[in-house]
Each structure stands twice: as structure tokens, then as C-alpha cells.
């Protein structure tokens, strides 16, 4: 974290390279002793041993309390598709209403007719519709899947949450056997149920086949149960299909370091800039991630087959691919709440080791084996989606920037620890505040939602052609003045849309 300090006469220059901000601060103090003290303090603070000494455990803003709800959804709710009913979330209402009105369903029209006749029904009206919708969706779903609590004490798989969704025909004993066959005990679990055709995305870690090509009957049975009824399924191994996301995480880390170095240079020479950009390979990583996610989404949406995704450990590239594929396919993931819920489910609960991966960012001197900006890569990929489909995503670039910052240094407890087990042990839920809840407070929502958002039911297929991908200016060149103008433009867009809506409301007097 501490870059260097240079002595010049009585003053000393202290360079602090910030972890999350990808920038460097220069402090000039009048005395050398002050500098050394500061340096010492910073060094100590940046390498705290005990996690319970971290700031989230002490952060107590006045407008939030520990008794607030922690997290957006549990897996149980995901299983029941309860996030639909989350009445507090306004964009969900937008989403839901538009969805319902487009259903052109007799029940919906009947509800409308009733509300016209009987004003008392108004209050219940949306609730009726929502429950109707949920029932229609979950009926099918519950036939084939069940919620398993085999991991309730984290003994089967330490990095999984306590509840997971598995095929109905597999019992808990089977799951335990399968867990032994997969690295880290990460047996195949459901991560996405495609409502259009009932196909699913499963994820797991690599099978431990070993040198003698070991097999596991239960594992095979489980996968058979997944594709039950359909002719075939796919297995996507993130390692074979993409060199860049191989188990060697250092490649990604080095890529980030090179890119940040290139962006931080003052000279701005056009020649060397492009070759440095190329040399960092960061955009190649983005390209492979997006194209693999596109492939996955294509398997599910177009071909109509279930897919199992795994890398080596199943905690990095696997999550990256499955998250992106869900964003591409599922419109409910593209709202502000939907996206945060997706992150919570696919990254926090599914056990991406944030503590190990996001410790020191691009400026660490020690080459940490576990350090890898996978989450940053995800945010970059999401940004590419956002840029290519400015109307389809319900959140703004500011949200992605905020998340990128929070993943490295946060006031909140959401990204603490490596998995649910560690968080339980630390009492994160009881002692810290939830970032995702904080991001949904009215004032935050104001700047993190996308004013242009228009719900579309269709999949958003990203272009992965090199000329469609760009460097994420807002993040990597965050501290150059030109990004200021872009922010201004975003602000202008927001004001325009709000002004428009207000005018629309005031010009339509609420007279019956």
C-alpha cells in the first residue's frame, strides 16, 4: 500500500497508493519524523491481522441501525421466487407492472375491470396480480427442484451457503458423496432457472478425476437428474474454453497491474498507450469472459439445454460466467435490486473469496498468490453491457464504480470474509451493516438507478468484437478531469428525465 517516500531537505513526500481507488496520493509533510510515523501507521493499518478489527465492525452511521434488514434475499426466497413480492422496491414494481400489463392475460384484465367498479379493490389489486404470477411460475419449478439444507453446518462444503437448490430426485446422502468428488466439496447446485423454457444453469467445481480417471456414480446421476427429460445437456469448463480465465489467477492480476500502470502515466503518448493497453491483455480478458457468457446464454436460451459450468475451484471464473449469462438472459436481473440480488446470491453467498481476492488491488508489492481482480473483471464486463445497451440495465455506471470501491475497502460488512461460514463465525450479520441495503436507500437510489431504463423482456446479446469493447474510462481513468464531463452528461440526462416525468404528472390532473 505504501509506495515510497522521498526525502527532500526537511520535507518528505509520501506516496500512498490507494487500494480501491487505483490512484496515488502524494502527501508532503514538513518533517521526516512525521512521515515515518505516518508510514508506519499506514502500513499497520493496511495489514490488519484480525478481521474483527476492521472498520465495518465500527461503522455506525446515524441513518442506519444494526437492526435493519441484512441482505436482499435469501436462497429460500430465490427458490420461491419471492423477490417478486418485495413491495418496498420500486423498480421492481415498475418491472412487474409492465410485465403484467403485457401478459394480456384474462385474469389481469379481469382485475382491471374489477378495480374500475370497486375502488376498494385498488388496495389489493397489485397483490392479487403478483401472487397470481408467482403461482404460475413456481408451480412448474417446484416439481423438479428442492431446497436442501445438507450444508447447514458447512460441513459438506465450507464455501457454500447453508441452503442450496438441487434436483428433487437427489437426496442429501447422495449430495455428500458428490461433494467428495468435487474440489472443495462444491457439488453441482442450481444457480439459474430459465423461466421461458425451464432450463437451468448449474455450477460446481472441477471433478477430482485424478490420474486414473476416477468416476462417481452419484455425480453422474445428479447431472442426469438435471437434464431429466431433455435429450442432452452441456458442460462448460471455463478453463478449456478460455485460456485467460484459467486457474492461474496471477495472469489476471498481472494484467490489472500493467493496465493501471499504463493508465497512470503522465506522458499520454499515443503510440505507447495502445501497445501498453494491448500488452496488459485486460481487454482480452473482458472479451473472453463476455464471449463465454454469451456461449452459455446461447446454450440455455437458444438451444434450450441445461448447462453445468465449472472452472477449477468454482469460485471465480465460474461465478463470473454464470452472473454475466444471467444478466444477458434474465430481465429481472437487470433492475437495480435485481442486479444487487444477483451479486449477493452469486458472489457473496456462493462463496467468492473476497477477502483473498480483493486485498491489495494493483499496488501490492508482495505478489500475493490469492489476489485476483475477478470481481473487477465482472464489473468491467457489466459496464460493457451497460454501454452497449444503455436502456436495458436499471442501474448506472456510478453503481459499478461504487461496487468496485466497496469490494476493496468498505464501511459495510457485505464483502467481508471469504464465504458464508466465515461470515457466520465473525457475526457479520449481527455486527455490521449491509451494503446492498444501503445502496437502495432513496438518496442512493437516486444516483445509482439508470434514468433511461426501459424494461425489455429480450435477451441482450453483447457484441464481443474488439471494436465494440472499450476501456472502462470511468474506472481506470477515473481521476482524469475528462471523466468529469461525462458525469455532467449523466447528471444532465437524469435531470431531463425527471423533469419530463414531473411535467407529465402535473399536466395530467388526478381527476377521475
Amino acid at each position, binding site marked *: 500500500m505504501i509506495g515510497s517516500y522521498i526525502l527532500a531537505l526537511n520535507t518528505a513526500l509520501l506516496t500512498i497508493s490507494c487500494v480501491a481507488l487505483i490512484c496515488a496520493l502524494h502527501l508532503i509533510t514538513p518533517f521526516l519524523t512525521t512521515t515515518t510515523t505516518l508510514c508506519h501507521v499506514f502500513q499497520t493499518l493496511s495489514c490488519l491481522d484480525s478481521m474483527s478489527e476492521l472498520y465495518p465492525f465500527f461503522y455506525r452511521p446515524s441513518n442506519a441501525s444494526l437492526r435493519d434488514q441484512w441482505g436482499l434475499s435469501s436462497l429460500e426466497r430465490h427458490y420461491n421466487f419471492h423477490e417478486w413480492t418485495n413491495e418496498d422496491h*420500486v*423498480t421492481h*414494481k*415498475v418491472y412487474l*407492472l*409492465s410485465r403484467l400489463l403485457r401478459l394480456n392475460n384474462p385474469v389481469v384484465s379481469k382485475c382491471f375491470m374489477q*378495480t374500475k367498479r370497486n375502488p376498494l379493490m*385498488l*388496495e389489493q389489486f397489485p397483490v392479487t396480480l403478483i401472487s397470481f404470477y408467482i403461482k404460475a411460475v413456481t408451480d412448474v419449478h417446484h416439481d423438479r427442484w428442492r431446497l436442501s439444507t445438507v450444508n447447514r453446518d458447512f460441513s459438506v462444503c465450507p464455501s457454500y451457503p447453508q441452503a442450496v437448490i438441487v434436483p428433487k430426485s437427489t437426496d442429501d446422502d447422495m449430495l455428500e458423496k458428490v461433494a467428495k468428488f468435487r474440489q472443495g466439496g462444491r457439488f453441482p447446485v442450481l444457480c439459474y432457472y430459465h423461466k421461458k423454457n425451464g432450463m437451468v444453469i448449474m455450477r460446481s467445481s472441477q471433478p477430482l478425476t485424478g490420474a486414473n480417471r476416477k468416476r462417481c456414480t452419484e455425480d453422474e446421476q445428479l447431472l442426469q437428474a438435471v437434464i431429466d427429460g431433455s435429450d442432452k445437456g452441456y458442460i462448460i469448463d471455463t478453463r478449456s474454453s478460455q485460456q485467460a480465465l484459467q486457474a492461474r489467477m496471477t495472469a489476471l492480476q498481472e494484467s490489472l497491474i500493467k493496465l493501471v500502470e499504463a493508465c497512470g502515466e503522465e506522458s*499520454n503518448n*499515443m*503510440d505507447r498507450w*495502445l*501497445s501498453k*493497453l*494491448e500488452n496488459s*491483455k485486460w481487454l*482480452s480478458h473482458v*472479451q473472453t469472459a*463476455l*464471449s463465454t457468457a454469451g456461449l452459455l446464454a*446461447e446454450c440455455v436460451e*437458444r438451444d434450450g439445454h441445461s448447462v453445468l459450468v465449472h472452472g477449477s475451484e468454482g469460485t471465480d471464473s465460474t461465478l463470473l460466467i454464470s452472473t454475466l449469462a444471467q444478466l444477458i438472459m434474465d430481465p429481472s436481473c437487470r433492475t437495480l435490486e435485481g442486479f444487487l440480488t444477483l451479486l449477493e446470491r452469486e458472489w457473496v453467498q456462493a462463496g467468492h473469496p473476497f477477502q483473498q481476492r480483493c486485498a491489495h488491488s494493483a499496488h501490492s508489492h508482495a505478489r500475493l498468490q490469492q489476489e485476483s481482480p475477478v470481481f473487477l473483471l465482472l464489473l468491467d464486463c457489466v459496464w460493457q453491457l451497460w454501454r*452497449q*445497451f*444503455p*436502456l436495458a440495465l436499471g442501474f448506472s455506471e456510478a453503481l459499478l464504480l461504487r461496487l468496485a470501491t466497496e469490494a476493496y475497502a468498505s464501511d459495510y460488512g457485505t464483502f467481508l470474509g471469504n464465504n458464508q461460514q466465515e461470515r457466520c463465525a465473525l457475526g457479520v450479520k449481527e455486527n455490521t451493516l449491509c451494503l446492498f441495503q444501503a445502496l437502495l*436507500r*432513496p438518496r442512493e*437510489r437516486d444516483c445509482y438507478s439508470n434514468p*433511461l431504463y426501459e424494461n*425489455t423482456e*429480450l435477451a*441482450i*446479446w*453483447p*457484441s464481443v468484437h*474488439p*471494436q465494440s*469493447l*472499450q476501456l472502462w*474510462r470511468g474506472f481506470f481513468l477515473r481521476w482524469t*478531469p*475528462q471523466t468529469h*464531463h461525462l458525469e*455532467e*452528461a449523466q447528471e*444532465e*440526462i437524469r435531470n*431531463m*428525465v*425527471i423533469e*419530463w416525468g414531473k*411535467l*407529465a*404528472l*402535473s*399536466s*395530467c390532473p*388526478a381527476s377521475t
Partner: protein
Amino acid sequence: MAAQHYRVRARHIRDGAHPDAQGNNARHFSSRDFTFVLLSASALPALSLLNPAGSSTVPAVCEGQPREHVENVRLLDRSSGQRKASIGTLYLSATHTIFVENNPETRKESWSHLRFYDVNPGVLSSFADSYPCVAQYGEQCGEDPTIPTGSQVILRCKDFRVFQILVPQERDCLDVHTSLVRLSRPEKYSELYCLSFNPNVNKEEREESWGFVDLTADYKRMGLPNNLWVSTAANSEYRVCETYPSELFVPKSATPPSLWVVPGSGAEDDFLLYPTSTKILCACVLQSVYCVTSQAAVCRCSQPLSGFSGRCQEDEAMLQALMKANPGSKGYENEDHYTNIKLHFIGIENIHVMRSSQQKIIDVGEMRFPSMTDFLYGLENSGWLKHIKAILDAGLFIARAVADEGISVLVHCSDGWDRTAQACSVASILLDPYYRTIRGLMVLIERDWVSFGHKFSTVERMLCVLGSKMELCPCRYGHLDGDPKEVSPVIDQFVECVWQLSEQFPCAFEFNERFLVAIHTHIYSCQYGTFLGNCQKERRDMRVSAAFEKVSWFCNIATLLCAVDRLGERTHSVWPELWKERAQYTNPLYRAEQSQSQGVLRPNTPLLLQGLYNHAEKSTPPRQSPADFLSTVREESQQLEEELANQQEVPPGGTPTITWASDKAYNTLRIAALTGEPITWEEVLRRRTSRPRPPHCGPDPPCLIQTQPAALHRSPPHPAGSPSAADLGSGVTVFFTAA
């Protein structure tokens, strides 16, 4: 808007030039908002020019006959490979090359679904290059029976569109190729599109159109003439400098006529051998931008001809005068300062480097499935962005000198029209908010590019002019006879610089990307007379000076030029046409009073990134565009404001109808979502069900208002069945710009 565009053209063919169009030979395509008349062979006089016997310019290798249309042609969709080829008929006329898909279902449905490609031959740049590509396509792809066989022609357009056409019969293919080669290189002025283009306007309107962009008014806007700068009539007859416009501004102290004596022998041979303006540098320092606040000016000229004769008294006197015109500060008046500027400008390469650079970047865009590494490497190798940056830097340097230090700047490069124009124009845009408006950009291009003109003196330069740059008609000649080495994308680069700036300052420009693309297209399309000819003088009277007759081959052109008579009487100006369509060229984020729109733009050392955008590839599904959405939002807001204002005046009984018919409930929710305010369901539902949408009954229905926000009804970005992820976005890069 495209429909209107075509309607105009169609009317032109029908009512204007070709009376036969009404006859049986015409092929009519029509729909609700679109009428297009395709003429069959005998009806098109221009096609009769395509007699191969009389045309010596067709390369010997092309033995085909000119054709008017070829059926069963496949247009390959480059973004999705040959799987998605559309079959149709290719029509070739003197002014349009049209592909009409002959799927009867889509044709019945509605015209908008009909895939329709129109290429102006003026835009066609090369297919001679592609001629060797004519091969049995099936063979290339192996013996796959599903792939149709045929001969392939690749059309590369000057606006970077690429069309891949598969013609079943090799004979037909040769014919198409011959026709296209001939069509893209008109031999006579009378074949030029702008001379036959005849929109439905009367004479007065046309004359008015030429006065649309008034440079005198622009000088007045800058506060000229004033007590320091005066207008001079020295060049009114173009005797001092032929390529400069007649109205020039010079420092007041420099007006003594002695300054305007042309030094040098003045012999006619010399006159031809050297660009005129270099000869008379000292006389022609002229006002490009005048910054009112700092009283500093940007002036332009060509390089001094120090050569053997050494110094030029008049030149130095002129610069002294320039310095005097700028009280309280110094000017770059002596040789040392020249050096300074020159050093700064050395970064901008000459036209030859630029040309090859552009070719390289086009090649990069045409790579089928490049890896990220290939792409970035190719981009870097082309050096295109480096050149753009150099031009921007030059403009920034000038702008800083004028705005911050209050120093007048004299800009010149070797011959004073390519790089000089680029740097001056960019500086103008940075300095003066006016040039960031739609009208302002028109004025700027008219002044810096059209009226200051290009040199026209030597045979070589002639060819250069003819074969390159913005001069359309000569362009043809350049391809025909001239030296292709003189082609260079000078104005392309300027347009791209403006685009780069608009990306950096999204709120600072009144126009959008589409406007830039439209200008770029018209520069090449030769539909209007604006970009025809090389300088004001030439345009004003397209008569031929005796000097040119020395050059033997030029006589032909001379005759033609005589025949053309006066350009303004035969052609139309592009600016009023663009102005008419300004609604679609407006950047919704532009606010005249906003900080970005005011004052001097200071792009800090632009760090340009890759990111090429393509336009006009109509086959690819349209991307989501926030700008369109915002335009609608803005229009509706304005309309609502007006209505609200009216409402206060009108008594409640006679409330004006609300033309805006967007979904109120949806909007309530949207605003609630944005502001985080809680919403009550009753409110929403009551609003929703409150009243039926009243029909519009205002006196003057605004035609631009859509019933719903555009985005609600926009076709999906990638409808089901769009190309797979693997070949997504492999659409051809057509218009290159770096983001």
C-alpha cells in the same frame, strides 16, 4: 426521415430530369410514405452514356456490358456470414445503385421492412481492387451445396461501407463490375449527380439556399470589422490570391496597397509551378478566428518562400501590423516564433502518411474475427489515432495561445490548406461556442474549408485537387487519370476530431454524431454543389483561365467547365437541406447556457481509446440509442411546458388537449424509481384509467411527437434469431472513429 429523403430523390427523377419516368418504362415502388421510381434502361439518359465503345477508361480486363439491373443477386450480410444472404435485384443507374430485396412477403407487409440499400456511385471508391476477388464463391467455401455459388463483387464505399454481392452468373458479374466502374468515374461534369439532382424547388429558393450560410454575417458576429481589423477589397477580383475568398480581413495598419504587390516575377510559368498563395504569403494573412475578449486572432497563410530570395520586407511588415492589431500583447511575428509554431506542428504528418494510415485502419476494421491483440496491434500500427491526436493538440495549442495568453497566432504548414485548415478549424471549435452549434459548424466548414479553398495552379496540384479531398467532381477525374497518391482523408480527420471532442464533452455540442456522418457523406456523395470546385473563385465563375489551356489534357475539362457555366445556377447547396432536417441532428443534451457549452473547451491531452463505430450498415439491428430516447423526452417536455403555460390561461372548462400520450402510470413509476419517492398504487391506477387519450385537435399538429417514448416501441437491440455471440458485432467497420 429517410423516407422523405428518398421521396425527394424520387420526385426528382419523376418530375425533373426524365419525362420518360412517367411512361411504361418506370418501375414504381410505393408505400404509405415512400414513393420511389426506378427507371428502366431507356428512361435513364445517364445510362446511355455508358456505351463501352466510347469509353476508353474501362480497364481492358473488364469485358462486360453495362447493365441496368441484375436479378437474383445475393447481398451477403457480413455480420452473420453467408447464411443470411438476402436475394434481390440490383439496379444500376447513373446516380444510384440500389439493391431491392425481392422477398414478396416483406414487400407486401410494409415498406419499412423492405431491405433497401442505396449507394450513390459518387460514394463508391474502389472495386477495381476487388475485381480479382471475383471468383467462384462456392469454391472458396469448399463444396458445401448449401452455399450458393456465384461470382463475388465487393463494393467499398468512400464512407467505409462495404457490400458483398454474389452474382450467380459470371457474365452478369462482369457486367455489373463494368457498369459500376464506369458509373463511379463520370467523365464529364454533366454526369455529376449534383447537376442532375433537382429537388422540387423553384429558382428563388435555390438562390436563397446558396445564401444560407453567410460568412459576412459570421465576421460581424465576431465583431469585425472594428478599429483594429478592416475588411479589404484587395482580393475582390481574386487577383492577389486565387484560392482565397474575396472578402478578407487584415490588420488596419497593413492596408496600404504596397503590401498587396505580389512579389516575384509573376511570370505565368512560375505562377503555374508554385501554389499561388505561397507566392504571396505576405499579402494574405487572413483572419480565421477572432477572439473578442482577448482581441487575439488566428490567422492563416502558407509557408514562407524564403528560398533564395531571403527575407521579404512586406511579409515582416504584415506581421508587424498583425502585432499592432493586438494591443497589449505580442504576436508570433519573427522567424523564431515561426520556428516555434512549426515545431509544434511537425506532429501532423503529410497527406501521404495520412492516406496510408487510413487505409490501414480500414483494413483493421475488415478483419473477420480479429482477436483483441490483433485489433489493438493493427490500430496502433495504423497510427491513425496518433494523427488525430496531433491535430487536436495543434488546435489546443492555438486555442490556448489565443484564449489564455491573448496572443495572435499565425498558422501555416507547407502549402497552407490541409493541415492549416485542420488546425484552424479545430481551434475555432475549441475557442468559440458558436461553432459547436449546428449552424456554426456549417459556417465553419463553409469558411475554413469551402471558401478558403484549395490551390489550383499546377498540373500536379490540379490532379491532387481533383483526385482527393473534398472536391467531389474532380475526385472522379483523380481516379480516372490522376495520381492516386494525392488522395488523402484531410476532412475526414477534421470530422473525426470534432467527434472526439463531442465524446469528451457530451453536453457541449448542439449536433450529434449523425450530423457529422451526414456531412461526411455529402462531401463524397456529390449530390449538392457545395463541395464542388476548389475555391470561391472557381465556384463563382466556373470559367477557365487561359493559363490552364497550356495543359493539353486539361482542355477537355475546360470545355466541360464552360459547358457547366455557373455552378450555382445548376446545383443546390447542402446546408439548407441539412438545416431542414436539424431535428434529427440535434444532441438532446446540449444546453446553450450550460458550462460545457460556454467558453473555451480544454480537452486535457486527449487520451483516445479504440472503439470504432459503424454507420449505415442497415442489416445489423439498431443499437439502443440513449440520444433518440432523450430527444423524445426533450420534445415532450417542451410540449408539456407549453401546455402547462396554456393551461394557466385557459379556464378549466376548456382545457387544452394533451397531445402527449405516453403512459402516465409508467412514468409515475419511473419517476418514483428515480427519486426514491414512495408511490401509492391508487394514484397510479387512477391516472392510468382516468381518461382515454384525447385525439389531437390542436391547430397545428406537431409532427415529430411520437405517441410513446421511442424506446418503448423500438425494435429490440437483438431480436431473437440475431447472430450468435460468436459472430455478433463482427459487422464491418464503416466509419472509423476512435472513442
